Every structure is written in structure tokens, then in C-alpha cells.
């Protein structure tokens, strides 16, 4: 059974295939649903080709859900936060870490 995760991007066009640092939310039902982790992961717009991967759902900065699901393979868990100052853009801060 594949696990399901969710991530947010500002715009769908920001999505890039391949190895990425991402904050993902675990969609497994139960009291810890939506728990967030920062991971290094491989993501693909062709989940059917990622046979050993899980499902990644993607939402925009307005919370709009991309109709297509992506595939995700978690390679490594990263720290729960990123270096940065309050009100700094987290996406830009991730790029710097």
C-alpha cells in the first residue's frame, strides 16, 4: 500500500522533476495526519513509473489541488526547520541551506 504525502508550491509551474528538498505532510489517517517533515526526495510527474515510490499530492499557494498526482521517493529525512529569519520566504531559505 503506497503512502500519501502532500506538499505546497507557490505555482504549479515551480514544480521540477528529480531530486528536491521538500516539506511534506503525511496524509496517513489518524491523530498525526498532516505531520510535516523536511526531506530530500525524488519526485516525478509519472508516478506509475516510480514503482517503489509513494503518492505526492500538490497544492498551490492558495491551497488549490493539482488534479494530477505525482510520485515521491523519500531519500533522506532532513532537519525539521531551515535556517532563516522570521518572515523570510521558506522556499528561498531552503535553497540556501
Amino acid at each position, binding site marked *: 500500500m503506497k503512502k500519501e504525502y502532500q506538499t505546497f508550491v507557490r505555482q504549479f509551474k515551480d514544480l521540477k522533476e528529480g531530486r528536491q528538498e521538500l516539506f511534506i505532510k503525511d496524509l496517513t489517517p489518524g*491523530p498525526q495526519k498532516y505531520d510535516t517533515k523536511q526531506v530530500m526526495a525524488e519526485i516525478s510527474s509519472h508516478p506509475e513509473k516510480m514503482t517503489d515510490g509513494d503518492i505526492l499530492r500538490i497544492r498551490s499557494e492558495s491551497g488549490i489541488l493539482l488534479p494530477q498526482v505525482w510520485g515521491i521517493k523519500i531519500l533522506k529525512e532532513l532537519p525539521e526547520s531551515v535556517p532563516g*529569519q522570521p*518572515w523570510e520566504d521558506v522556499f528561498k531559505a531552503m535553497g540556501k541551506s
Partner: protein
Amino acid sequence: MPFRDHRDFIETLKKTGDVIEVTKEVDWDLEAGAISRRVYEMGGPSIWFKKIKDYPEGFTLYNGSQGTWRRVAISLGLPPETPVREIYRVYEERLEKPIDPVIVDEKKAPCKENVLLGNHVDLYRFPAPMIHEGDGGRYIGSWDLVVTKEPETSWTNWGMYRFMIHNKRWLAGWPQPTSQLAHQMKKYYLPRNEPMPAALVIGTDPLAHMVATAPVRLGEDEARVTGSLREKPIELVKCETCDLLVPAHSEIVIEGEIPTDRIVPDGPFGEYPGYRSGTMAEGVGFRVKAITFRNNPILTMIALGVPIDDSSIAASLTAGIAMKMGLKHRGIPVVDVYVPPEGVTHLIFVSVNKGGTQVTQEVLNYFTARRVMVSKVIVLDDDIDVFDSGQVLHAFATKCHPGRGMLVEHYEGRANSLTPCYSPKERARLKGASVAFDATWPPEWPEEVVPVKASFKTIYSKEIQEKVTKNWKSYGFK
């Protein structure tokens, strides 16, 4: 007698018919939010969800403490049917007598009935709701108040800011970058690179939450303001892990610190203007160090969205009075200010006893002087009852000159990025504009050319009015 806590308040709402207890099991994941939202849109009561999926008995959710003017009146100790104008008057009058809080021993503080420290801290012990589909997370802090302090002056700020669960021991939130919390952070903690102690308070005296929405002046303690509204001191108790003081009768207190060098993503969230807009991943992190809570804790929430809800009602009152006081302070001949809840603090009605372009410009200057939360102001003569939107619309439609009646101010670095009509670029740069509509008669017009309002009370003589009212029943009217 003021309410000691949310429990007292809910008990009173039971008697007045302003709360419904839902005993059927409800899912914290969207179901509680959807029910609450629907009830707002039907003008219904507050809701106490008594059985939450995945959570033990006694861990409950409560939505909508200030979602109607009735509930605001009750929280102020007034009869439920009190008219809005009278609620405004009482609120303004009580503000004149601030009352200092009192500090109580932790043995007298119900919020200390349970204490989680260190490795025992786990935010998932509480049924934090996933309020809207597409939100960035579970907003445990939606109808809350966040306590922070300036280290040098000891000025303590209470603000209502959104905070969601990031993981077991971290919250992510978005106090606006122009908020008072941000002011304290930027002035004291960022330059020293020291984490800012903070406490997120859930479920306390309903007036304390309302005051947390108020644009209280920098340096003024909301605890004193709450005392003035309660007409009695609010009881505070010291936190477990820092010297912040929090309301002793709170349901849940989450203690921690906002680091200056680490961040986590917040949002998006269906916010008070009535939209889930693009303010995301530009907030603050909150490292949790302790959680204290009452037995059978009640987690207060708001399924924010299109008005009318708790936020639009509370802000109508708190912002309206603060604006009136601010305008008076600037010497503007203000008579009344009303913040219609439907306008979600983006639209303000101001009546003045002397209108014209200059006064309208001064009103606009007041609203755009510092952080700007308001984008549209209608300035009216004082024969208009600002609490009557029909009268305001009529005056706006007929008295505001379409060419010279609109005064616009542009600014950058202090706009309200939650204004839905701003583009992503404008939101990122806090760039925006405000407009004041002059719906007053120009004071330079000779009296004999000013159009006469054709209403019963203004276009007929006293004699005719008295004759008609005296004979009213004889015409066949009831």
C-alpha cells in the same frame, strides 16, 4: 459579573439558546470546520463539539464564541438583544477605565491542572482541527491569543495570530509582518539574535480573545484593556518555562519561543477577508517547550471565512472604537465610526460634523499613516447613521462626486497583504493603496444651494410631521 473563563460563558449561552452541543462523533479533519462554517452562513449558534474522532472523551472543540452581536453582548454582560450602536457605546465607555490584572498563585490557576514538559510535549494530544480543505495544516491557534513581551519595557502584547501544527513540538504561524508581535521581534530579538519567548493561549475569557483582535496602541497592555471591559481584573499566572504571564483560567497554554534563526512553512489558510489567499511560507516558527491545560480542555476555534463570523464581528467593534479614538486624537471632527462586519475591516464608515475634501484627506491620512489594514473609507455627514448600511449606500451613491470625490493614497512596505485584490507581487512587497470616498456636502457650498434630503423628517415642516403622526391611525394605518 464578568465571565471567569470560557466555561462560564458557554453555560450562560446554554441558557440564552446561543450554543448547541453536538454529541455525535465529529471528525477534526474538515468535518468540524465545515459544520461551523455552514452554521455561520445560516446565522446560527456557537457549537460545542463534544466527541472528536481519534481523541479521548473530554477533549472537545468549541467554535463561534463571538459570531453574532448577541454573543458579543452576552460576553459584555449585556442583554442579548442589545443594539449594535449600544454595544459600541458601552465598549467605548468601559475603555476609559483600564484595570490592572492580578497575578495569582499557580495553585489557583486551572490552566496548570496538567503540565507537559520536555519530551512529554506533544501537540497531537489535542484535537486541533483541519479547518478548511487546502489549508496548510491543523490550526490549533485560530481563536487564540499570543502573549509576547518587550524585554526592556516589559510591555506585554496579546495578539490573535494564526498558528498551525508543524510537528509534535513545532508550530508555524503568521503574525502579519506589520503586527505588534513583529514590531517586538524586529526591535529587540532579531538585533540580539535571541529567541522571543511566546505563549499561545486557547480558550480564556471571551473578552480577552476579543481584545486580542483590537488595534491597541503600541505599549498598551491588552490585559489592562480586558480588565476595563470586564470591569474587574483578569487573573494571570506565570508560565512554566519563561516569565510571561497568561490568563489563569485558560483552557490550554502552549509555551515556547520564536527563534530568530530557524523557520518552518506556514499556510495557506482561509483567512478573515473571506478567502484562502497566497500568504504562505513567510511566517515564523514556534518551538514548543511546555503545554499546560485544564482537565477536559476545550479547544476554541474559528472556521474563518466569508462574513459574518467571530472575526468580522469582534474586529468591527474593537477596530471601530480604536479608529474613532484615533481620529479624535488627530483633531478630526469625527462623530461615529462603524466597521461593517461584511466589509471585514477593509471598508469603514466614518461620519463627521464638518465634511469636505480637506477633512476626507485627513481621514485618509490617519488610515494610511502606519501599517495599513483598511483599503476603503466612506466619509459621511453626521445626518447619516453609520450603523445603517442603507443610509450609507444612499449617501455614497448620491453625494460622492465620481470625479473629485475619491482620494487615493499609494504606499509600500506597510500594506495588508491579506487584501485579496492585491497581486502576488504587491503582497510580497506589502504594496497597496487606500481610497477615501468623500460623501459629504462641500462646506464651501452656500447653505441655500445644498440639496435637501427628501425624507419625512427632513423635507416637511415640524407642523406637518406632527399632524401626520398624530392622525396616523385615523388614516387607517396601524
